[in-house]
């Protein structure tokens, strides 16, 4: 998109959002007190601001950095400082870590880890770790062979392998300390998520919601790799680690063994509800937060009931894994609206009252501001065009369904918005305490949905639906929006021709960074959304930008370029050109994407020279 067009889109978005067009433009002062409800990061980063020590930057998953050398005034001068090939093609989701002048990277399958010496010119490797990883995993992952990054603690790098293992690698030497088998890849159980480390435990969750597996979250001992607890997301209370301390906020979520009784027969055993997204942690409440995926299969008639606790946000005790509360975002999902998107922990005011909240932009198109101590929904408003539900009933937290958009046996339901990719997918939003705003990379696709019978065959997809997608109203693919979670309002947006699949970084310099599928890496003014700078990187961006201070004292911004994931593999299969025997034709959803980009696997690092 040209600068002129995006400026026009911005002006339009401002008008649509009901703001005076000049309320944003160049406004230097702080936002009005009500905007953002004086929000601040609940759990700021413990370490030096020049590092990037965990996947989301901090336990809140804010993706905010205090670094302020790059500002809205000088971002136009950004240039490539260096770049590096990972040697691997396919979807480079996730982000590097930077600790002690060393950058740690994990590639998509085969999940090679690199330690890059930032203190030596030319950025040589300190080590490279090539794990054993079952080749069969490549064909068992639903949505490309992605990996969303590593965690760090006690001189050790922890990450997950696609074939269901978690590994610990010595951060100094690159030697494997331990390796634990967490999932069964022969059943289609893979792992793609980035773990976090909480109080001596590596927190890990599974993928495979399209393969009829049963989801779980596990905690491994950082020292030994021993599984300290494993909590299923579906099934009997015993498996789910539900005891008398379980206090869901809503009456309909109370009762024994709902993870079984909200299903028919033993359908819960292959019911999905995996946890492939981001994990947050609040040390004061000692709770870890994460979401669960769609239920399996997509053919809803095969699993009548609420299908608890799929498409839900769960809060667990970090020590024991015991479930403290749960909120089911989309009960009895029939549109593949996984609830795994990140939960950003902020303290803010809602209706004038200070709340400890988490903010969650769900696949189902609603943005939820939730009390993170209790699971009460405080605000729930659509952040993209939504037509499957008319709104959220604030008494129950449940969606008010649109009867015309219910999928099921014997019907072709047209124009469901958002599509199964969601109003937002895995690409994480960011939050800035300076502006009080959330920066959300959204998707504007709608779908038709037709179920078909499906049988469970271990190790094969358990889906039972076809759901072709196309661009939603307005003819754009995605929009980068600024969101006020206190009031549930969009302030402005930047329309993009393709769906957004890259995460966001926002800094104290007042700059927000994101990438696009067609390979642009962009900087925009965090207050106004005014475009500041862009650079065309080597491949579409589905990774998440980070920033760090180099040993030379400079602020750097780093991001993966390497299109893939559901968009790059399944939707636009023709962006690949590396296999003579797998030549895919253009997908109808994004027919021209391959004109702009191809598969790649590079890290790009930018700085002001």
């Amino acid at each position, binding site marked *: 998109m040209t600068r002129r067009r995006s400026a026009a889109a911005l002006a339009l978005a401002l008008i649509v959002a009901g703001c005076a067009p000049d309320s944003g433009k160049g406004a230097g002062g702080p936002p009005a007190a009500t905007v953002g409800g004086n929000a601040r990061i609940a759990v700021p980063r413990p370490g030096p601001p020049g590092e990037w020590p965990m996947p989301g930057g901090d336990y809140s998953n804010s993706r905010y950095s205090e670094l302020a050398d790059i500002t809205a005034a000088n971002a136009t001068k950004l240039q490539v400082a260096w770049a590096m090939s990972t040697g691997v093609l396919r979807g480079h989701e996730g982000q590097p870590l930077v600790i002690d002048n060393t950058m740690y990277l994990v590639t998509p399958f085969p999940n090679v880890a690199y330690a890059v010496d930032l203190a030596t010119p030319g950025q040589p490797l300190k080590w490279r770790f090539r794990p054993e990883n079952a*080749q*069969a*995993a*490549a*064909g*068992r*992952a*639903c*949505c490309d062979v992605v990996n969303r990054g590593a965690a760090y603690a006690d001189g050790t790098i922890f990450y997950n392998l696609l074939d269901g293992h978690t590994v610990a690698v010595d951060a100094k030497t690159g030697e494997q300390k331990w390796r634990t088998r967490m999932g*069964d890849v*022969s*059943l289609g159980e893979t792992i793609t998520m980035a773990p976090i480390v909480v109080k001596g435990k590596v927190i890990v969750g599974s993928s495979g919601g*399209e393969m009829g597996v049963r989801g779980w979250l596990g905690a491994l001992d950082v020292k030994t790799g021993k599984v300290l607890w494993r909590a299923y997301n579906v099934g009997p209370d015993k498996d789910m680690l539900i005891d008398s301390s379980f206090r869901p906020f809503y009456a309909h979520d109370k009762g024994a063994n709902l993870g079984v009784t909200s299903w028919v027969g033993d359908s819960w055993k292959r019911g999905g509800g995996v946890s492939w997204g981001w994990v947050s942690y609040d040390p004061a409440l000692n709770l870890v937060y994460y979401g669960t995926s769609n239920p399996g299969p997509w*053919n809803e*008639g*095969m699993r009548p009931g609420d299908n608890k606790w799929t498409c839900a946000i769960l809060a667990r005790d970090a020590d024991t894994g015991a479930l403290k509360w749960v909120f089911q975002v989309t009960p009895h999902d029939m549109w*593949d609206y996984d609830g795994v998107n990140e939960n950003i922990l902020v303290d803010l005011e809602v209706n004038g009252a200070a709340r400890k909240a988490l903010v969650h932009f769900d696949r189902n198109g609603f943005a939820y501001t939730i009390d993170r101590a209790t699971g009460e929904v405080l605000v729930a408003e659509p952040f993209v065009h939504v037509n499957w539900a008319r709104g959220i009933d604030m008494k129950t937290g449940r969606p008010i369904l649109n009867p015309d958009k219910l999928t099921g*046996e014997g019907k072709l339901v047209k124009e469901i918005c958002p*599509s*199964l*990719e969601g109003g937002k997918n895995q690409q994480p939003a960011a939050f800035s305490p300076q502006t009080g705003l959330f920066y959300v990379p959204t998707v504007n696709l709608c779908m038709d949905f037709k179920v*078909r*019978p*499906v*049988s*469970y*065959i*271990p*190790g*094969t*997809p*358990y*889906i*039972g*639906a*076809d*759901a*072709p*997608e196309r661009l939603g109203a307005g003819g754009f693919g995605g929009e980068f929006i600024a969101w006020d979670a206190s009031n549930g309002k969009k302030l402005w947006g930047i329309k993009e021709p393709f769906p957004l699949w890259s995460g966001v970084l926002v800094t104290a310099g007042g700059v927000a960074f994101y990438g696009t599928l067609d390979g642009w890496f962009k900087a925009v003014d965090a207050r106004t959304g005014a475009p500041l700078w862009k650079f065309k990187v080597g491949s579409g961006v589905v990774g998440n930008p980070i920033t760090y201070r180099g040993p030379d004292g400079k602020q750097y911004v780093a991001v993966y370029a390497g299109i893939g994931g*559901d*968009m790059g*593999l*399944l*939707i636009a*299969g*023709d962006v690949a050109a590396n*296999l003579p*025997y*797998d*030549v*895919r*034709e*253009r*997908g*109808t*959803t994004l*027919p*021209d994407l*391959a*004109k702009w980009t191809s598969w790649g696997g590079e890290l790009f690092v930018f700085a002001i020279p």
Partner: protein
Amino acid sequence: MTAASRHRVAAWVPALALVALTAAVTLALARRGGISAVEAAPSYVPLTARDALARPEPAGPDSIRFVEHPDVYPVGWPSTGIPLALANPYERNATALATGARLYVAYNCIDCHGADGSGSMGPSLADGRWHFGGRPAEVFESIYQGRPDGMPAWGGRISNDQIWMLVAYVRSLNGGRDVSTANFTGLKSRTVERSGH
């Protein structure tokens, strides 16, 4: 050998709807003749080894009995010296193609290889290009013994007869199209409908 004795009824319980659908399909097919109802019905036999990638166990006396064409792939593993000239008994048989298309959905090939083989988690089967060979016997082998990047082994789990029907269907997907050039005009690159996951 009676048709019923050829296949043990699977312990695997298909969705009721699927049973109804396939029953209708297979009856219709049976009436048109050529393929018996039992051969056309999807029937997946889980093995004791849970790993679908593990070598398929040779069929024990009590498991499955295979249709005995003189020219089918020999049962067992490893299959030394595959006669590459091996013919597909169902090549260009319209009824078998239609059954193959239904089995392609029933055995979840569709969600790994895409509708009409357009490519998804697994490679495109509609590009006219083959990693492991496109002759009937080679495609049979891909399906029978599986392939290393996650293609499950179906040998011993579904009947050889059904594999041959899948071979016929899969080989028909390209339809002689040349996919070499994409110039985004619609002339030299058509679009195909794919589902995301």
